[in-house]
């Protein structure tokens, strides 16, 4: 187990290093006019040169990368171009918002998806199965920005118009200001993220449950006289969850990037919003910092997933 973990960790680090290289190359090789933007319209070439020097942009590209890498290894991702705020601070400020959004939404979609998937698989061809299949396909085909806007239209605008101002139009309330305001601001964003993914998980769980239910060991379990519930939940669901866990690992990692749209629609000041702001200002250190942070999330999520396999499916052996 320890060797396996170490191996995965090393590969994860390698992947992260390659990503840092790729991100750096992509964003720094493409000429940017940050110094010009910062200096203003009437800047002399000297001013621009001075600003470039201050930001370290006049250094050779390899030296820039080396400085960036050594700093990053010391937990320093640089400063944003405009206000000289450390990138780590920007990430730290935005992270609680994104985490609130991501964790709440993933709990919601996992429970909805797995529950619906099991219901569908245990009663295939039933009315519930068909209804759930249709519903999940509709939500699956809906872009998240559209779903967010639809929810806003019905649950914010029409409800408020009807005299029930239950949900706000957007924004964020920190949890320290009270649990209810926090949750109230997040319910619609949670639903936006969760309904879409719940659809994927319903289909995934259903398919994998159906596969597992046709296997011999399920017949054995039934032949032993176990109750239907015990067979379905203790024997079948456990190994049927393996592909679900794989998908969850991928999604959890991608979530840091995937919240961009939801945060934009509901004006939540999270990582997605921060990155969009940075992108609009061509604030490279912030973009690179967030992309690297998000990639690290993907790598860590993948390692965690590999470990969860072992717990879920006794057939998986580590090499």
């Amino acid at each position, binding site marked *: 187990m320890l060797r396996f973990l170490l191996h995965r960790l090393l590969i994860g680090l390698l992947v992260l290093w390659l990503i840092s290289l790729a991100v750096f190359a992509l964003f720094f090789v493409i000429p*940017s006019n940050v110094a010009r933007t910062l200096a203003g319209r009437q800047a002399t070439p000297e001013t621009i040169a001075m600003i470039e020097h201050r930001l370290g942009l006049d250094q050779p590209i390899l030296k820039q990368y080396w400085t960036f890498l050594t700093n990053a290894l010391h937990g320093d991702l640089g400063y944003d171009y405009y206000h000289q705020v450390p990138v780590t601070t920007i990430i730290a400020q935005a992270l609680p918002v994104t985490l609130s959004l991501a964790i709440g939404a993933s709990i919601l979609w996992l429970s909805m998806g797995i529950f619906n998937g099991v219901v569908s698989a245990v009663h295939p061809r039933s009315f519930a199965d068909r209804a759930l299949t249709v519903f999940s396909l509709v939500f*699956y085909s809906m872009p998240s*920005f559209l779903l967010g806007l639809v929810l806003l239209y019905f649950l914010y*605008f029409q409800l408020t118009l009807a005299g029930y101002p239950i949900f706000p139009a957007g924004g964020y309330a920190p949890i320290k200001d009270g649990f209810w305001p926090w949750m109230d601001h997040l319910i619609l964003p949670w639903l936006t993220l969760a309904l879409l993914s719940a659809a994927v998980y319903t289909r995934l769980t259903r398919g994998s449950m159906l596969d597992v239910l046709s296997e011999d060991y399920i017949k054995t379990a039934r032949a032993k006289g176990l109750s239907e519930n015990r067979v379905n939940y203790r024997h079948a669901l456990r190994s049927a969850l393996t592909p679900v866990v794989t998908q969850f690992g991928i999604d959890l990692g991608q979530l840091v990037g995937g919240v*961009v749209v939801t945060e934009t629609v509901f004006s939540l000041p999270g990582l997605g919003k921060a990155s969009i702001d940075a992108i609009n200002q061509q604030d490279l250190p912030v973009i690179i910092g967030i992309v690297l942070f998000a990639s690290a999330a993907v790598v860590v999520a993948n390692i965690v997933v590999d470990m969860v396999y072992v717990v879920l499916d006794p057939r998986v052996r580590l090499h």
Partner: protein
Amino acid sequence: MTQVHATGGEVQTTEQVRRIEGRSPWVLAWERLRRDRLAMFSLGVIILIVLVALFAPVFAAITGHGPNEQYRDIGLTPQGLPVAPNSTFWFGTDDLGRDVLVRVAYGARVSLGVGVLATLLTVVIGVVVGLTAGFIGGVTDTVLARFIDVVLSFPFLLAAIALVSIIGPSLTVTIFVIGFFSWASMARIVRGQVLSVKEREYVEAARSLGAGNGRIMLIDVFPNVLAPVIVYTTLLIPVVIVIQATLSFLGLGLQPPTPDWGGMIDESRNYYQTAWWFMFFPGIALVITTLAFNLFGDGVRDAFDPRVERLMRG
């Protein structure tokens, strides 16, 4: 080869002889697909959308409204707000007094065009990389597999947005950025298939007959990994269409005034309280398109892989 019609002295008429036809997996899959009513209905919807895209100018001709023409006199209310659907503007107008129906029809061109082109690019890169990695093996495989991991670890949407904003948005950039970030999962699927196919007996047989690597790769291995490629391709198109719409929605799609669904939905955001049609029509067009592709893709998958799912459907 001669067919024996008479056995044991009895003469059989030709009608009684059941001809045994060899049916390739492709024919079988197509026949299963043809019997899938939902998939065929979705295919019909897809063809309809393709026709709308192709004949978008016809919509402009019938209504007499160009896609980018602004009717500030009849297309806007005295307060300067969009006009609701009526006999002149069947789907209403947008914030600049343009005909929503005509713009939705033209928008289909962008969605389908990017959807198909970016998917093709993704598939080509994915298949080439997957085939190379799986077939050659060794160091090449290790390096390519690691590279696939790296691309898969990229926060896709974030990186795509950053890249588009730095290079500058355009149709070509959108297609290449989508292709650049999405080929990896296709490559992984193809690689896995190749790894199992190349150990089969018929590959060994081809090798013992003196076939070269290139021939084996193209003639013996490639056709046998085609089924998952086709299934994945059909399911990729709706995903790509959504990504394109999302980029447009975030202001990183096509330059205005080119009509496209994601961009129209973005423009309508400030008007959803007063002009529902402005958001509704491009939105419903987008959902119908992706839904049709998803349903059709499901059918294709079931047709190639007629296992549990299909049996359970009844």
